[in-house]
């Protein structure tokens, strides 16, 4: 019954694949597994030091953190506002060459929906939100196991943002977030504040990655969500990101103009990518800054997101700016 068709199909696929293997090679761009053999920076360092083995895990998520705890990896790419770093006694290596761009939490909103009143509310939320505050909010989520909406409500109250004492705001708005607990907390901050000001807020949280949520904003499926200044700028096409938040925000607004989206005033709070090691690893190799990795003779294992080899803040940047070498 079935065999004839399936056999033909299988044969066809098999032939195609065999033909492919024997075919001409294409000069390909950005092949994920090409060894980054350039060790830029002629400081006379050995090719034998600063070599790391890359393992694709998740983007600063539970799998990477578990791997670091268990010793499956030596260096992990995590997020700097993650409370788990301090809780576990890990060491965040200093980004001494300034590879990482600024990543202030910034509301991304559809221009159509934006009104001065909404802006006032959101600015009120952003202003007191520092990195320390954000890290503490994250801690409540992952350590105390409190839900995002409660964490948000408590913080808004303690800051005197709610109950909202300014001009009331009408209308309705749809708030989104990616599937990252920090995003959910900050989105709840926006939502809670706008609700207190009188708006009808609907929430669509846990939407995959930026690649899912940013288009959703542009196509109008959601109206507002929290973004990270640097990464969003690069996503929107920026060649480089100024290190001053206000300048970066202006540049970003320009880039987003024809997408019907804009960003508001960035909060002081940042969440950058950071390289993290255990205290033991730091002690063994004398690590306190990322540059120190270049002098390590052992091959360390580095765990990061699958897209790391293609990213400036990740493999590419670490190779060019810090002179590290990666192998599979």
């Amino acid at each position, binding site marked *: *019954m*079935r065999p*004839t*068709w*399936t056999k033909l*199909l299988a044969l066809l696929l098999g032939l195609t694949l065999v033909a492919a293997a024997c075919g001409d090679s294409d000069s390909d761009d950005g092949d994920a597994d090409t060894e980054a053999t350039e060790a830029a920076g002629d400081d006379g360092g050995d090719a034998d030091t600063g070599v790391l083995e890359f393992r694709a895990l998740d983007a600063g*998520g*539970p799998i990477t953190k578990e791997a670091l705890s268990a010793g499956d990896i030596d260096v992990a790419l995590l997020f700097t506002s993650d409370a788990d770093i301090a809780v576990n006694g890990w060491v965040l290596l200093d980004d001494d060459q300034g590879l990482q761009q600024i990543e202030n939490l910034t509301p991304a909103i559809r221009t159509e929906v934006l009104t001065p009143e909404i802006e006032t509310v959101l600015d009120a939320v952003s202003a007191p939100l520092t990195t320390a505050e954000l890290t*503490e909010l994250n801690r*409540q*989520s*992952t*350590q*105390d*196991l*409190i*839900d995002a909406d409660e964490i948000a409500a*408590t913080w808004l109250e*303690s800051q005197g943002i709610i109950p909202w004492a300014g001009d009331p705001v009408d209308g309705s708005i749809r708030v*989104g977030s990616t*599937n*990252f*607990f920090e995003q959910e907390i900050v989105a709840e901050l926006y939502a809670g504040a706008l609700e207190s000001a009188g708006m009808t807020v609907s929430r*669509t*949280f*846990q*939407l*995959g990655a930026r690649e*899912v949520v940013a*288009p*959703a904003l542009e*196509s109008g*499926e959601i109206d507002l969500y929290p973004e990270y200044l640097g990464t969003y700028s690069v996503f929107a096409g920026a060649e480089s990101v100024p290190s001053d938040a206000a300048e970066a925000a202006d540049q970003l607004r320009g880039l987003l103009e024809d997408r019907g989206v804009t960003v508001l005033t960035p909060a002081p709070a940042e969440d950058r990518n950071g390289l993290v090691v255990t205290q033991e690893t730091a002690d063994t190799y004398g690590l306190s800054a990322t540059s120190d990795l270049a002098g390590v003779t052992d091959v360390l294992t580095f765990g990061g997101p699958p897209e790391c080899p293609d990213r400036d803040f990740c493999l590419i940047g670490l190779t060019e700016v810090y002179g590290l070498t990666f192998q599979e």
Partner: protein
Amino acid sequence: MILAQPRYSRDSWLDWSWVTDNTDDIYAATREHLVLTVLAVGIGLLISIPLALVAADRRRLRAPLLSVTGLLYTVPSLALLGVLVPYTGLSRTTALIPLVSYTLLILIRNIIEGLDSVPGDVREAAAGMGYTRRAIRWRIELPLAVPAIVAGVRIATVTTVGLVTVTSLIGQANLGQLMVSGFQRGFRTELMVGVLLVVIIAVVADLVLSGLQRFATPWTRRRATS
């Protein structure tokens, strides 16, 4: 505020106080999950029955039909979702496309088998009694195929309940979201509640449908083979 210790247990796999504190959210996630499952299987049936009826008569069409649906089956749902999102957005529609596709293979295969399983002598007897082809199809074959069809719906439902969890990755607020959120935060109870509820729903659905199967076919004493 700084708590002296976590509000809920980090080591326990099921901290009931979290459950009682969050019944609303759990209920909403469960309802979403059920809606998506019922929609997927329902639409799957609507598409499969006509397709199967057509293929049952035309042997030539069967092989390609089963191959194509079989191929759809092996494409991991995550990949399918990833490809669809830029086109169909973050809607229930996007979630339903892979869910429905995956039910198609199960349902079409089972319906065709059901129709095939009608013994030849029964058909001959009916023809002899003057039944037209159409009458045979609708009044004899289909009723006798019901056990196989219900068996197919059973399997499709159980499978779909599991698959729905993956749609949480595109923002569908179902039990999968509890699982993923719990996993992300290292919160075992949240993860466990999601998993347990998915299993319970699948098992209950299976039991209900197998009861339905027995009810609808009093003439079969045979134990269902699938």
